[in-house]
């Protein structure tokens, strides 16, 4: 019968093994964080266009919070739909 001897003096690799699932969880969290940042960045101009389109001319030139519509109006869209020129284009 053979015996196995373990050489305790042999150098051991001091490697910190991380769980792959834990790594992936963190990778997912970071990717969602950056995706959210990027989504805000990419949607900023279209949202601002939408906000602006719901404002009247007086509100545009007023020194108020530009990110908020205080007096929402659909007059710009209504004007488009009743404009002969726009209907010709579309």
């Amino acid at each position, binding site marked *: 019968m053979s015996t196995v001897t373990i050489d305790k003096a042999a150098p051991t*690799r001091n*490697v910190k*093994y*991380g769980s*792959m699932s834990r*790594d992936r969880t963190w*990778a997912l969290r970071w990717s969602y964080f950056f*995706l959210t940042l*990027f*989504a805000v*960045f*990419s*949607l*900023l*101009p*279209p949202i*601002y*266009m939408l906000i*602006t389109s719901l404002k009247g001319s007086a509100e*545009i*030139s007023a*020194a108020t*919070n*530009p*990110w908020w519509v205080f007096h929402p109006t659909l007059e710009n869209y209504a004007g488009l739909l009743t404009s002969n020129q726009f209907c010709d284009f579309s």
Partner: protein
Amino acid sequence: MLLVPWVIPPAMSTLAWLWLFDPSYSAFNYTLSFFGIGPIPWTGDADWARFSVILVNVWYGAPFFMIMYLASLKSVPEQLYEAAAIDGANWWQRIWYITLPMMRNIIAITTLFSLIVTFANFDIVRILTAGGPLDHTHIFATWAFRIGIEGSDIPLGASVSLFMVPILAIAAVFILRDVNKRGNEA
């Protein structure tokens, strides 16, 4: 949702950016004022104007890069990452030794494409700064327009337009030769 910048016509989206950068009604300056940051001359100062043009160009081009890189990332075999993890590779080593080498061709081709599109870009600079302040943000296309159409010197405008051809051709030759070489190695 992230493809929105690509869906809106660049002329219209650049107008929205122009309105965001507006010196009098800038929504950015309004927001930054809450953090104690003074009004920034987004399109009035040469450095800030360049930054604004670059920002809008990145915003417009990002969806294309995203799609290309996503497709490239999906094509990297999962087994390579598993083998690397078994060998004890950390996150950075997996990126450096597996992901980037596998994406090199796509990165090279998208870089070439971006170089060409950015050189030939017209809408963003024309609408955002019109080449100003003091002609500091011109690119070949807008400068050619300024000289050829607005300055009525069409031959000079044509030569400005063609000036970028050899530069882009040399870049294209180097990049595509590198891509071809790697293709032959595989």
